[in-house]
């Protein structure tokens, strides 16, 4: 499709974080005028790669070569890359809700005349830019009054105002509904027609299949494959194989589960997004979890896994529309977190820092914090019991800390996660929902967490594990449900299934089923 020289070449990019090689020799070429899709599992290194390209990680922080428009470049910061026409749009939009569309578009590059903002010119140029992205709103509208899809278009208009040559979109449709997504894909094709090259990070294979001219698949920080494709005729299976094709060795402890009676049953669970009206984050979901069983939930980012878990956990997310929860065969009303805990449900959030732990608390206070009644004696917290219990968990879970008096914030990720697990083991729940329990922790600690999960199942608890890492789910679960766009799209036996099947079920969206 192109005869021009490639706009971008990245060669042997290596980016090392303390202890981990996030990028381990990525090489890719982007041809001028292409829509180039980058695929990979969560944590494969896609976003890190884009941060290297856009100067978020400055030159010198990484190894390797970036050749942009025929010249080697060394961006010191994001300003440097923007000056060359490389603009990145992050998944979490960087707009300021209280400012107008026009003010947002020119934020940081304000149009000034004699030291003052040139309002007339700002409005005029904003109107032009909005027309180019097909957004019909008054540029003086505050951004907060726009829908997510429209905000995404404002972001693109902002990129256009910077004379973008290479547009990087990180999961551009993750937060959008189907119409807005289709709209955005159309716009990307339109931009392509005007000679703008795009790099698109996406999990949604059907979207890649619809618009991409080239695909690069990254796994474990390395380029797996990179090849041109014809939009509309993309071999999704080939992408899936390259994304997940890592062998399963014994990183998972051996375990035989003995599933018993049903501990948790969810019927016809419908939850609406708290902000976007009409968007269902849980769309008529039904499932059961048995005692002594490890049930996996597989889904891509934004598919609705966390939303399902949190809406079950005392409706702590979204707007409950319908559905019932049964625990041990009895219907229960879990209208707030306390009633959920009282009924034997526990939820360990994926985001330890902002949702899971109070980092300024000492270990002992954290461990008892979800069940203070358990250490209460005559109206007071029994500090001896607290210490004894905390010490017990420190030893049995092998939390690496000199004492239970030190702050949770000083621990490593793996040990923080163990404290978070201890916090939810102490109330002795019947059903534990673990959201990304091994996120951001090293391999050794992961193994210990897996052991813990299996021990919990052996104690007769139903353990639900939400994870983005398919090998992990296959390695430790008994059964796996797949979720896509708020719907439970499949149920598979973990022992007889493979990653490709899972990935297919996870990316099966309405109308454009990949299977």
């Amino acid at each position: 499709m192109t005869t021009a020289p490639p706009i971008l070449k990245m060669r042997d990019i290596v980016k090392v974080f303390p202890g981990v090689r996030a990028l381990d020799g990525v090489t890719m070429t982007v041809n001028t005028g292409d829509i180039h899709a980058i695929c990979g599992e969560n944590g494969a290194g896609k976003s890190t790669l884009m941060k290297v390209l856009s100067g978020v990680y400055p030159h010198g922080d990484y190894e390797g070569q970036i050749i942009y428009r025929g010249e080697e470049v060394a961006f010191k910061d994001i300003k440097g890359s923007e000056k060359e026409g490389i603009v990145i749009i992050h998944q979490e939009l960087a707009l300021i809700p209280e400012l107008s569309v026009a003010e947002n578009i020119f934020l940081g590059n304000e149009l000034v005349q004699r030291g003052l903002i040139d309002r007339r010119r700002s409005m005029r140029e904003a109107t032009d830019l909005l027309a180019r992205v097909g957004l019909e709103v008054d540029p003086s509208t505050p951004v907060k009054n726009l829908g997510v899809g429209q905000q995404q278009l404002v972001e693109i208009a902002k990129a256009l105002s910077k004379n973008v040559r290479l547009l990087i979109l990180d999961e551009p449709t993750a937060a959008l509904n189907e119409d807005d997504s289709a709209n955005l894909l159309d716009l990307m094709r339109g931009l392509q027609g005007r000679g703008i090259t795009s790099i698109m990070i996406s999990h949604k294979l059907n979207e890649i299949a619809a618009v991409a001219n080239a695909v690069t698949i990254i796994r474990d920080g390395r380029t797996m494959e990179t090849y041109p494709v014809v939009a509309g005729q993309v071999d999704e299976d080939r992408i899936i194989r390259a994304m997940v094709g890592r062998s399963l060795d014994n990183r998972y402890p051996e375990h035989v589960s003995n599933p018993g009676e049903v501990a948790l049953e969810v019927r016809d669970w419908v939850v609406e997004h708290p902000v976007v009206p009409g968007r269902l984050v849980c769309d008529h979901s039904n499932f059961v979890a048995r005692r002594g069983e490890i049930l996996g939930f597989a889904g891509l980012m934004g598919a609705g896994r966390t939303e399902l878990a949190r809406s079950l956990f005392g409706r702590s997310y979204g707007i409950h529309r319908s559905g019932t929860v049964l625990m041990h065969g009895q219907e229960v009303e879990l209208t707030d977190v306390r009633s959920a805990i009282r009924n034997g449900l526990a939820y360990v959030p994926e985001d330890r820092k902002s949702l899971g732990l109070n980092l300024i608390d000492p270990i002992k206070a954290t461990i008892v914090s979800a069940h203070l009644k358990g250490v209460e004696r005559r109206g007071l917290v029994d500090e001896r019991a607290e210490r004894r219990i905390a010490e017990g968990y420190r030893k049995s879970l092998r939390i690496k800390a000199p004492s239970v008096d030190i702050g949770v914030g000083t621990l490593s990720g793996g040990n923080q996660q163990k404290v978070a697990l201890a916090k939810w083991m102490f109330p002795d729940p019947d059903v534990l929902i673990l959201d990304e329990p091994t996120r951001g922790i090293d391999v050794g600690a992961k193994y210990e967490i897996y052991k813990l999960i299996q021990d919990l199942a052996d104690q007769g608890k139903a353990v639900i594990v939400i994870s983005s890492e398919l090998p992990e789910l296959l390695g430790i679960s008994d059964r796996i449900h797949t979720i896509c766009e708020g719907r439970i799209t499949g149920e598979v036996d973990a022992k007889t299934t493979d990653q490709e099947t899972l990935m297919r079920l996870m990316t099966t969206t309405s109308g454009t089923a990949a299977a």
Partner: protein
Amino acid sequence: MNVIKQVFGTNVRQFTMVFALVALLVGFHLASGGRMLTSSNVQNLISGNAYVLILAIGMVMVIVVGHIDLSVGSVAGFTGMSVALGIHQLGLPWWIAIVLGLLLGALIGAWHGLWLSKLGIPGFITTLAGMMIFRGLTIWISGSVSVPVPDQIHFLGSGYLPEWGPGFTGMNNSTLLLGILAIAVLAWSQISTHRSRVADGETGLDITPVIIRVVLIAAVIAYVTWLFGSGRPGTSFPVPGVILVLLVIVYHVLTQRTIFGRHIYAVGGNKAAAALSGVNVSRVYFLVMLNMSFLAALAGILFVGRATAAGPNDGNGWELDAIAAVFIGGAAVSGGIGTVAATMVGGLVMATLNSGLMLMGVGADKTQVIKGFVLLAAVAFDVYNKSQGRPSVIGRVFGTKGGGQQGTASTAVAEDDLRTEPTPKITAD
């Protein structure tokens, strides 16, 4: 050096603020030619500052949950005036007026609490409004004139404990009894803590530092008892001081040892995590605000008693003294950190500065400047320490819930930053 560590705990720096207070007292004593540590001066220091310290007890709880209460001065003035008017004009018995005054305070607190917990209006705003409303009401109902209060309230505000028993003790026997009680309770608690630690199987525990600690505590309390008890006949440890000590004990236990106390720190440390642990966040907000105005009412009544009359401008600027005490005591602006005990030390530092500078003949204008710099220096010192990765010094005086020891958090942070994938944005309702 090792002995000092064992006596004062593993971190000697935890006591920096206490040492600073002692140094201030001794320094002023020497500089003023021995007028600082006299019976009458310390008696005045306590009864003249009890109201600010009582406000600071409530304020540290408000600040720990991450808010601030600007209305406390106006609320104290309003309730003090209401009590005075109730007795003077409606002819209510003094004790009924006090009970109604405290109820009025709680009601005002509930008013502030409702705006915060039900509508989520920040405490700063609701109480700024309250500051104006209740100041205006105070002037309004009083008709801009002072209203006298009876002797019983005067007793509460600046009275002394009764004289009784033998004279050979050479001091007020009520004060002596309190001192002996305090020594007994503190010695017992030190020894029983040590015993339970031994019983829990902790090894390497030595009884010697415990004994040294008990002896030290006894010596300090004995000196303080003598200081307060040996004044001119008829004086003792002041009544507002007794009320203050009782409140400090109650609120120390409430914040450090009850489930509600844990919830206060949980909400202040991480609201979202607290909510996901089953804490009713808006209830905590409501009760903390209610309690603050209740204590403001008590402070107002004690002040009126000491002044023998309620004035329309009582309480002007008290909120700032209370807030200063809390932050000198090492509380964090962002919430989650701060203890009642440390706040009392902070408040006493301020009170000592006031008293000492006055004894030295420094004017109120310069005193204000010095206090401002002390506040800034104390907080800057603490923030600097934290930024160096060292444990916060003054936030942890005595307290077990002022936060865990924060060491080098950078290692943990780096590890978590590895996952560069964006997280789906979860909006907690």
